[in-house]
């Protein structure tokens, strides 16, 4: 039913959309290899900005802080987010479910300045009354990131749980496994691709956050985006280009590998299914 001009229009729209999305990133990466300090004038290929980046101790320290926080936040967000998804999908109704659902959906859109400020004021008040968490630093950033990342994990795991055939759990129960075993032996393996995807998403979100971290960080816990932001505020610098290029390619390849692994698994599953069908037909 597709006429050729419709097809052309479709591809035109996509080409335009993808150009808009990717040209700035590509430009950024290309200019990270620029010899000149002036970011916009090409004067020859050079890796010197990468060298300068790696010798920037402050920057490298921030990378370490960010990676550590991202790792911890992603892990705890996956644990909490999976529990929340389980509650939403498998637990039916309970008192306060509407409130629970609201607290899952709201962090997805809540402006970061509000989340950041409110968490900071909470930590300060807590310090005042119970003496915890005792100043700001990695712990407070970890709590803040866990809270907003878990909402994303919940959404990802939620959709996978809903797709899952619940009779599998019932069958395992019927065969004598207790509820905890059913969860760890049946449910968890089946939703594991979503857990991996959720973890990766949470990891990149945490790694990326500037605003919330700025509010709740303390001395000695400067994250990478904070470091980048303070140098970007001063204007465009080729060192930041180099860092950005590394970040973009690193995260993109990580995402791509994750996506590719999941796709391969899916393909294998389909192939197995077809092989089984053929075998059945031959019998």
């Amino acid at each position: 039913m597709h006429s050729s001009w419709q097809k052309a229009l479709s591809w035109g729209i996509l080409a335009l959309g993808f150009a808009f999305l990717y040209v700035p990133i590509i430009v950024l990466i290309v200019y990270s290899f620029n010899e000149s300090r002036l970011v916009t004038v090409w004067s020859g290929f050079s890796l010197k900005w990468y060298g300068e980046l790696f010798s920037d101790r402050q920057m490298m320290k921030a990378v370490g802080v960010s990676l550590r926080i991202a790792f911890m936040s992603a892990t705890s967000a996956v644990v909490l987010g999976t529990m929340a998804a389980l509650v939403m999908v498998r637990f039916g109704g309970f008192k306060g479910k509407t409130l629970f659902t609201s607290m899952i959906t709201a962090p997805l859109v809540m402006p970061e300045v509000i989340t950041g400020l409110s968490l900071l004021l909470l930590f300060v008040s807590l310090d005042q009354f119970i003496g915890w968490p005792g100043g700001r630093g990695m712990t407070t950033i970890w709590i803040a990131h866990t809270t907003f990342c878990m909402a994303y994990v919940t959404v990802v795991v939620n959709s996978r749980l809903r797709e899952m055939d619940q009779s599998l759990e019932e069958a395992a129960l019927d065969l004598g496994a207790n509820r905890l075993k059913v969860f760890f032996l049946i449910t968890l393996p089946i939703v594991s691709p979503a857990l991996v995807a959720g973890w990766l998403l949470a990891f990149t979100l945490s790694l990326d956050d500037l605003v919330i971290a700025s509010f709740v960080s303390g001395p000695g816990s400067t994250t990478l985006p904070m470091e980048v932001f303070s140098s970007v505020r001063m204007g465009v610098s080729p060192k930041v280009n180099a860092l950005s290029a590394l970040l973009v390619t690193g995260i993109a390849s990580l995402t791509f590998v994750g996506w590719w692994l999941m796709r391969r698994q899916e393909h294998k599953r389909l192939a197995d299914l077809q092989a089984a069908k053929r075998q059945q037909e031959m019998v």
Partner: protein
Amino acid sequence: MKAAAERKIWRPGRSLVIAVPFIWLLLFFLAPFAIVFKISFAESQLAQPPFTNLVEWAEDMLTLSLNLFNYKDLVEYDLYLKGYLTSIKIAFFSTVFCLLLGYPIAYVISRMPPHTRNVCLMLVIMPSWTSFLVRIYAWMGILKGNGLLNNLLLWLGVIDQPLAIMHTPTAVYIGIVYAYLPFMVLPIYANLVKHDHSLLEASADLGAKPWTSFLRITLPLSIGGVIAGSMLVFIPAVGEFVIPELLGGPNSIMIGKLLWAEFFNARNWPGAAAVAVVMLLLLVLPLTLFHRYQARDLEGREDA
């Protein structure tokens, strides 16, 4: 019946599994708002923490002092009023642009064969997984006076004076649309891809031309995705800080930036809290709208 079966499976330990994420969210998501609200009535002071207590116990007297000064400031200085208006205006038009650009993309992708569809979707999502800050930074190099766009246009002879895009509302629009486009495409795509193709065939069968079918069938049925996507763009955009800070100028001072300045530069925490409370009040309606559609999705309900 189904609910009963669910309950049977997860009975023991149920309360614990509910309690852990619930309490976490109550403590670290909901309670902070109450504290923001409380502190917005406090007074700024030079101390640690930099605000006064609302309740004082001194000389056998319990005094509760509610300081409305912060809110009075918001009304009296038109800087804030303008900030709110600018934020809502910029967020609104950015949402419209995202919709105009994102809907066709989502539509085209949803009509592709499954294999191509997944690849294209991946390409749409990928930028949003890479650093937000970096992507905005990339536009700084493109848009500034001696930036790539101007150099290109000058070289092509389209213009003979560099365009002043950087530090204007235009730059902010470009940045927001660029950063939030994937969030518009995804929910609309997720909605469109679920559509039953036979509805369009039925519509054609009953005499509707393709464009009429789109307007009367596809568009109304995708309204849920459009609302979810629009709220995913609009709400965070209202409070956006990084984009107006890096790309904007004096004509695009958004409320997120004012809050930031109040907090970090003026160190007026109660003032910042009041700015946040008012922003939150403005966002109650969009938040409710978003919640309605998102909750339906999360709970797997299909009713309209």
